[in-house]
């Protein structure tokens, strides 16, 4: 009897914690939407991640071009197309086949969505609606698995390397810290930013991805 009471309390506590977390996330999102800024505190220092202004974008563009040139001259960095071809030649993986599978599942989702949408319009019983919910969820999970597989295979491609660089640069450019009641760029260089605390980097990147990339 006592055990089941404890279980109930634990479940209730978990539910409250989840609700609080969800509400916190919603409040954070609402605040970011209004002014494209995210304020947070880390180790007693106040930080802000904001949307890049035109000056930042010009700076980012310069860094991007420089990185593009560097990567282009590095013969060890291959383009996606080259990697896909090499994988095929060495019988390691067939990325085109993976793309084909994803396309197949996407088509299945589209077909299911039409039937699902019609069922919703026709006010079909819950059992039918739930069936479609489950079928679509299954397809989405399969696509996510395949997409993850593909991203691992192409992780070190030219395109992904450049993409990661842009995300890191954007995060660095958009991160500011409070000093003498004013917000100023938190780190003087990208190297300083990347060698700072892991938790700070993760938080800054997460907010920057939301504000600057809508992810």
């Amino acid at each position, binding site marked *: 009897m006592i055990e089941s009471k404890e279980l109930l309390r634990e479940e209730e506590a978990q539910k409250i914690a989840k609700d609080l977390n969800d509400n916190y996330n919603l409040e954070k999102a609402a605040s970011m939407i209004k002014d494209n800024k995210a304020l947070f505190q880390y180790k007693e220092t106040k930080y802000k991640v904001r949307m890049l202004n035109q000056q930042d974008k010009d700076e980012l563009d310069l860094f991007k071009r420089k990185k593009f040139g560097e990567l282009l001259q590095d013969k060890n960095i291959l383009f996606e197309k080259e990697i896909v071809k090499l994988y095929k030649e060495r019988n390691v993986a067939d990325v085109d086949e993976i793309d084909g599978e994803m396309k197949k599942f996407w088509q299945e989702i589209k077909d299911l969505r039409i039937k699902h949408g019609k069922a919703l319009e026709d006010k079909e019983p819950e059992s039918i609606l739930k069936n479609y919910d489950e079928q*679509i969820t299954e397809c989405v999970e399969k696509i996510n698995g395949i997409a993850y597989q593909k991203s691992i295979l192409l992780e070190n491609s030219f395109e992904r390397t450049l993409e990661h660089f842009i995300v890191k640069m954007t995060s660095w450019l958009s991160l500011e810290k409070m000093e003498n009641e004013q917000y100023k760029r938190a780190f003087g260089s990208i190297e300083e930013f990347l060698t700072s605390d892991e938790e700070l980097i993760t938080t800054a990147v997460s907010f920057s991805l*939301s504000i*600057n990339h809508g992810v």
Partner: protein
Amino acid sequence: MGYSLRNLAKQVEHQNLFIATKEINGIKLFYNDSDFSRLQQLYLYYLYFYNDLYMDISLKKVSEKVLDNFIREDSYSYYKRQKNPENISKKEENGIHLVFNKNKKNKNKGDK
């Protein structure tokens, strides 16, 4: 973030604010008037998305069960758009379009 944006845009308070900004001068959703971030564009997209959905629910075109989860909402929205293919351009299908095209029949019905 995507889920948070959707959940926000779905809330009655945000829908009311959205309607108010359309009908009353001086009420704004954002501090900025232009140069909207991707985040803001997505949020606007979902405001229109749910506005459209709530409209269909109130017109009894679909039951409230459509709001039970994102899968149902997306399915119904996709089904609706496929039902009226003349309103979809190739470009719109792949991008974010902030203003939903109104079906010509509905426009005629709704016009005073």
